[in-house]
């Protein structure tokens, strides 16, 4: 019975995809509205995407395609890692020691409302070249998300755990290793997924504004060069890469937090 239910849901999913693609195709080809007719249709996109000799130079068979993916991925990863290396420790210290929080939160709450992309021009002025500038802006977004979620995670740890550890003779180092990090880990990973999404978001904008190479850059460029199917190819690629990176983080998180799975499993029983 359960098997049938899963099959049915699976079937519905593909039906949904088909409906969506068909609607896209139909609206581009058959609707007498000029707005729609300017868009590329799914068939053209797919043909171009898997074309060994693409009309516009980018498909799964061309090196350039992977070059752009590489540039974007490298930038996203670099900013993300930087944000984690700086943001997690800062978030932990802010959540754990009130003093640190007092110093840091005022400054952060002034900087935080500024949309990260507003930093792009300043970043270009300060950093030598557009590459570091783009990475900086992307880093900034991921950094805020990571720090805030880590901070929240530490704060949400039940104080009884701290007290129990202290009774048992734990020193601050032990508390950091045995209580704070495992206790905040769920929130940290939620924050990391958000940070990853935010990083991609920022990165694409940064690339559009100020870069050469990369998926974001290519999307705008294809528009400028009137290579419309390529726009969609890049968009879809972006979606896939973004999804995979978030999924990776989720998988790593689940492995580190096996104890959660087991507890939840029991609850479902």
């Amino acid at each position: 019975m359960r098997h049938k239910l899963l099959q049915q849901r699976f079937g519905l999913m593909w039906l949904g995809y088909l409906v969506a693609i068909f609607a896209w195709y139909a609206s581009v080809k058959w609707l007498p509205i000029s707005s729609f007719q300017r868009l590329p249709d799914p068939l053209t996109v797919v043909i171009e995407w898997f074309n060994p000799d693409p009309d516009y130079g980018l498909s799964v068979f061309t090196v350039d395609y992977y070059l752009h993916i590489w540039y974007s991925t490298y930038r996203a990863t670099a900013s993300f890692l930087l944000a984690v290396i700086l943001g997690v420790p800062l978030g932990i210290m802010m959540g754990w020691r009130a003093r640190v929080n007092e110093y840091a939160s005022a400054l952060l709450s002034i900087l935080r409302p500024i949309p990260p992309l507003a930093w792009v021009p300043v970043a270009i002025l300060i950093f030598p070249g557009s590459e570091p500038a783009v990475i900086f802006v992307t880093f900034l977004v991921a950094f805020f998300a990571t720090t805030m979620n880590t901070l929240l995670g530490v704060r949400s740890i039940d104080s009884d755990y701290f007290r129990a550890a202290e009774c048992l003779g734990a020193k601050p180092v032990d508390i950091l290793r045995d209580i704070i990090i495992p206790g905040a880990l769920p929130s940290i990973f939620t924050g990391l997924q958000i940070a990853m999404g935010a990083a991609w978001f920022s990165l694409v904008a940064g690339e559009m504004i100020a870069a050469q190479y990369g998926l974001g850059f290519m999307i705008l460029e294809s528009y400028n060069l009137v290579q419309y199917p390529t726009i969609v190819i890049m968009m879809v690629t972006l979606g896939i890469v973004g999804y995979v990176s978030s999924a990776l983080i989720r998988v790593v998180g689940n492995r580190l937090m096996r104890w959660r799975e087991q507890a939840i499993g029991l609850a479902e029983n």
Partner: protein
Amino acid sequence: MPDTMTVTSQVLEPAADSSLGHLSVRQVNKIYDPHGVHVEALQDCSLEIPAGDFIAVVGPSGCGKSTLLNILAGFDNLTGGQVLLDDEPLATVDHPPRPGPDRVVVFQNGALFPWKTVLQNVVYGLLVQNRMTEPEANEMGMELLAKTGNLDRIAHSYPGQLSSGMQRRVEILRALINNPRILLLDEPFRAMDTVSKTTMHRHLLDIYDQYHKTVFFITHDLDEAIFLADTVVVMTTRPGTIKLRLDVDLPRPRTRETLTSHRFLELKQQAVNAVHEEAKKAFERGERELA
């Protein structure tokens, strides 16, 4: 200040009685000042607890029993008076107490580390105090788990997979393995149903009969208090002080028959009257829970 490290370096052993864990609470005051509102949680609270005694503290909500436990455990300091442990100062106004493995706490809502297995939880204190190597600690942990009702079979489970009764038992062992001078229990069975509670009482008494640690047990359940303890102390409503001290002269080991014995009911009558008086006062004052 007692040197907690050297005293607790001795290994946990069964004992018929105890020479350590004599607590002297002398005229303790505790005043809170949150947002400028003056709150006197404890006032002139005095209590002598002989080593190896099982003492239960009861009283209306907000009477300061948890405050007293926090001071004994080292999470908070008093604002007047002093507490001595084995004739050495534990807490004075100038020297705040610090938490330590000679006075381990078992918490109301359970504080087993969810991300560690049962065994890892139990041996945590031993490892973090650098008392022995990991293999030694694990061996000792498994032994203790096995001895106390075959708990070794859940040694590698996570707390989230256990019932609350099991969790509580593991938490008590986690405290006990450190050979503390005092075991502090803050309403540990509060959230449990009657059947589980009865089982837990049995387990706790077994441990007490075997190791004879000084036990400081907070509860609001009078039956539980009289059934478990050698001494029952009733606290007044805020500001908290000792209203009544009952010597529970029921024979050990305590059995189901004890619960319905004549002497049990006599003691309970005295305690009920005392608690009821205080509860009425608190109610009339419209107290909110302090804790």
